[in-house]
């Protein structure tokens, strides 16, 4: 029981699509307003143990993003239960999710608090985050003045330096210039030495092989394959 990091029990996510904003409003009051349903994830069972590194493979629209969003707690399942043990840090959309008026430093606290860290803890991590992001004097400027590369660096730095227990990496590891990208990959490799659980979402099967031991292939909201990374890649390449 204790070594489970993430557990999905019969999880479904169905998006309601209305043809207009008016219908969506009425849909709040009446269940019978006509709408289409998009089944993004269907009756999914998945258990990921602590310390595992899992690659999620699948084509666009297979439900990968929905899966990740549910793990991070941004979106809610329509049915079923998701259990998450530990601090989740997601390397998705690194440039967004900042308060534009806050300085870089204040945004570190915003993110830290949302992840449930006490202020003293954030204060301890702060120098490391600031140094890794290479923002120097910009760290005390409002984030709206940042370039997209600076935002991405800050986002990445916060995510990897808060000592996450579960790390979610989207394929876009294209952060900043070449040197910084290498530094990021090194950092991920180094934190993977610890007791961290990692989810890696990608189309690039070779990167997945380098980072992960287990592979899960998704199609139309269902898991169609779950096994070792080599078998998963073979399955994925053969089918798609």
């Amino acid at each position: 029981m204790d070594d489970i990091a993430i557990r999905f029990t019969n999880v479904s996510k169905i998006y309601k699509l209305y043809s207009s904003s008016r219908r969506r409003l009425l849909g709040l009051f009446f269940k019978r307003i006509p709408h289409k349903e998009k089944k993004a994830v269907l009756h999914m069972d998945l258990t990921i143990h602590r310390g595992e590194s899992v690659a999620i493979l699948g084509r666009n629209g297979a439900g990968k993003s929905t899966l990740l969003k549910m793990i991070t707690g941004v979106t809610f399942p329509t049915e079923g239960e998701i259990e998450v043990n530990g601090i989740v840090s997601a390397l998705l959309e690194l440039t967004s999710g900042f308060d534009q008026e806050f300085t870089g430093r204040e945004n570190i606290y915003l993110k830290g608090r949302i992840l449930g860290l006490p202020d003293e803890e954030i204060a301890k991590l702060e120098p490391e985050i600031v140094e890794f992001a290479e923002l120097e004097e910009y760290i005390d400027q409002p984030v709206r003045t940042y370039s997209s590369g600076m935002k991405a660096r800050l986002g990445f730095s916060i995510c990897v330096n808060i000592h996450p227990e579960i790390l979610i990496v989207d394929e876009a590891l294209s952060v900043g210039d070449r040197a910084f990208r290498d530094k990021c990959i090194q950092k991920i490799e180094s934190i993977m030495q610890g007791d961290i659980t990692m989810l890696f979402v990608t189309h690039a099967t070779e990167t997945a092989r380098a980072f992960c031991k287990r592979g899960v292939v998704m199609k139309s909201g269902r898991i169609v394959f779950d096994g070792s990374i080599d078998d998963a890649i073979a399955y994925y390449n053969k089918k798609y």
Partner: protein
Amino acid sequence: MSVTTANKKAGVGETIGTILRDHIVYRKQIVKLAVSDLRRTYRASALGWAWAVIKPLVTIFVYWFAFSIGLRKGGDIAGYPFVLWLICGIVPWFYMSEMLTLGTECILRNRYLVTKMKYPVSTIPTFTSISKFTVHLILLVLTILIFILTGNMPTIYMLQLPFYMVCNFLFFTGWALFAAPIAAISTDFSNLVKSFVTAVFWLSGILWEVDSMHHALARRLLMLNPVTFLCNGYRNCFVYKTWFFEQPKRLLYFAVALVVLYALAFWSYRRTRSEMADVL
């Protein structure tokens, strides 16, 4: 450990519990985000903070001109010049109208907190309200100064001003908690609300005295309006010199309205929480 379940299982009590807990855990962050909201509102202009005062001043001037000079109707009320009577009733309205428009849109405007991270969404209306209320506090201080400078020293009735301020804050924070989730789901709703703001303004006795209306039924109906209660309340402190407990019926109506509003707010939040991130 966190467990996320399909949201329909969350009961009403549980929803209220979550909202209260989020407000306690995130109290520091709420204050910071309120400051951020203020900065966002006033930084982009050269005069910055001055706009918080200039806009209301212009509005007050226009109404004073139209009523006192144009219509020649603005006589003294309860022994006070019309313009003073106007100011102490319209100052709370500035906060209300901000909450009716921007409060309704607060989740839409802060969507990054909903779609990019697991932030307690129920605190968005609260920090927006705190931000708008800060401007309200500044205007109230100015109002008191204006009264003193025109030789109208504060009376003992001013002691109840905090009571009406709390009522005002609670009511319109509750409003935003009700309206903002619905507006996040459908932009039609915020347009609907916007088109009624002017109607609410003219039907709430901000520019004219509800108590002096001849039509008894209309007078009673308007007194049920919480906006009338609140504006009248501020005037009780400044000009009418009436204690809030001297009008127990009005107080009761307002209390009922407040409870109903919060019931609706909890319903709306609970109903929309699970869909919000998918729609925004």
